């Protein structure tokens, strides 16, 4: 296949190995990667990282407990928008793992409808593992984790049907959501379920905040997956992200003062 390079430096035939325009990104990437690797390494060598309390997370136990008390079920949806490689889907799977451990302990039914066959397969495995970990492998029901349709509103309509028929006491909406978010959350709201939502889709967050009891906002979803699973590599990544956030804040403050003193300078523009 013939692909010609877009060479900006005059080297039209082959282009340069290093695109100078991307240098700031490269430097920033390397700094970030080093910070993440350092955090992972320091956890490996025994350092403990803790995470602040995230309000929605306390509600997880409450949600499972309530469903058990009422002899009802729990519905868990990863949303329609994601596929298995999305970071949010991965975070959602990690949370599913701890929710499934608790449902297995309490013998509470867990329904997991999905729009993606690969997500279905992974979720089945996650729930199965959690049941084994909880000491109740017999409580794993493969049929409750199923594929519906890849069509957005087909999926939404079907999950809606399940919600109104099964009336789950608690609903988890964790993953990547698009317009179906409100259809699901509103229906859940109308039957009075406890709803815990979390997504990185910023538009849908507004609806979740209005219609759900607890909402994990954007990055909180990632942190929550570390908090619940106690997975140290996730915790260390969260720590690394925090360090980078401090650097970014300092950068903005310093550059802003600089810009005020010397308006002609533009070193902060990449």
């Amino acid at each position: 296949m013939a692909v010609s390079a877009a060479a900006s430096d005059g080297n039209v035939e082959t282009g340069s190995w290093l695109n100078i325009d991307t240098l700031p990104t490269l430097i920033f990437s390397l700094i970030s990667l080093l910070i993440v690797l350092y955090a992972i390494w320091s956890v490996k060598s025994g350092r403990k990282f803790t995470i602040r309390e995230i309000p929605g997370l306390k509600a997880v136990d409450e949600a499972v407990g309530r469903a058990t008390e009422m002899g009802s079920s729990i519905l868990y949806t990863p949303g329609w928008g994601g596929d298995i490689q999305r970071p949010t889907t991965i975070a959602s799977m990690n949370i599913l793992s701890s929710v499934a451990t608790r449902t297995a302990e309490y013998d509470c039914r867990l329904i997991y409808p999905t729009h993606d066959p690969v997500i279905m397969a992974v979720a089945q495995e996650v729930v199965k593992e959690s049941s084994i970990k909880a000491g109740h492998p017999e409580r794993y029901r493969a049929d409750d984790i199923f594929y519906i349709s890849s069509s957005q509103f087909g999926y939404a309509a079907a999950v809606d049907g399940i919600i109104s028929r099964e009336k789950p006491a608690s609903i988890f909406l964790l993953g990547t959501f698009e317009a179906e978010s409100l259809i699901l959350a509103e229906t859940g709201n109308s039957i009075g379920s406890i709803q815990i939502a979390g997504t990185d889709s910023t538009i849908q967050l507004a609806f979740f905040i209005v219609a759900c009891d607890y909402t994990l906002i954007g990055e909180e979803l990632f942190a929550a997956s570390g908090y619940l699973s106690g997975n140290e590599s996730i915790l260390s990544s969260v720590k690394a992200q925090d360090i980078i956030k401090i650097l970014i804040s300092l950068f903005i403050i310093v550059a802003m003062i600089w810009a005020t003193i010397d308006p002609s300078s533009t070193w902060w523009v990449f």
Partner: protein
Amino acid sequence: MDIGILVAGILTLAVFSFLYKDNPVYKAAESWLIGLSVGYALVIFWQTTIIDLLLVPLFSEGRLILIIPFLLGLMMFSRFSKKTSWLSRIPIALMIGAGAGVAIPAMLYARTLKQMSASVMPIIENGSLNIEAPVVALGVISTLAYFYFSREHKGVMGSTARLGTYFLMIFFGATFGYTVMSRMSTFIGRVDFLLTDFLHLIK
């Protein structure tokens, strides 16, 4: 009346019947929709990907390297058998790995670096106070503080994070407002179709 508009009008009304309650007409329309949409995707992907990107280049242009993704694609079907299903991990691993590799620099550039430098504005410009500059900087920094997980939100950190939640709520409120606007527009568009094209009540 144009038969297409008639069909579209009837299907539109069938879907709207859901608002009264879940009913067989709606359910039939919904199943029809699901079936058609899956079939449509099948055709589009067959044409634009399997034919255009795989079969034509492989067989008429002789790009033999495409045998690799072809085989990897076929491995996805190993999922249907317990014994071989681990094979499907390989194509998935490729997609996940490549996706992750692309994401790191792209995310850092567009979502982080670029946004970071765009947040820098002079506080005093041409001798007058530029109120937006501190508002944006404070908004960004306090919201970042809300997303700071390593420490409990107490003291200075706590009040900064609290300020961050207020900025977040402003964003969610504005988004909610605009989304309401959007959904209403969509509905108005369907009303337009029903009143103008289907029922001819408006010229």
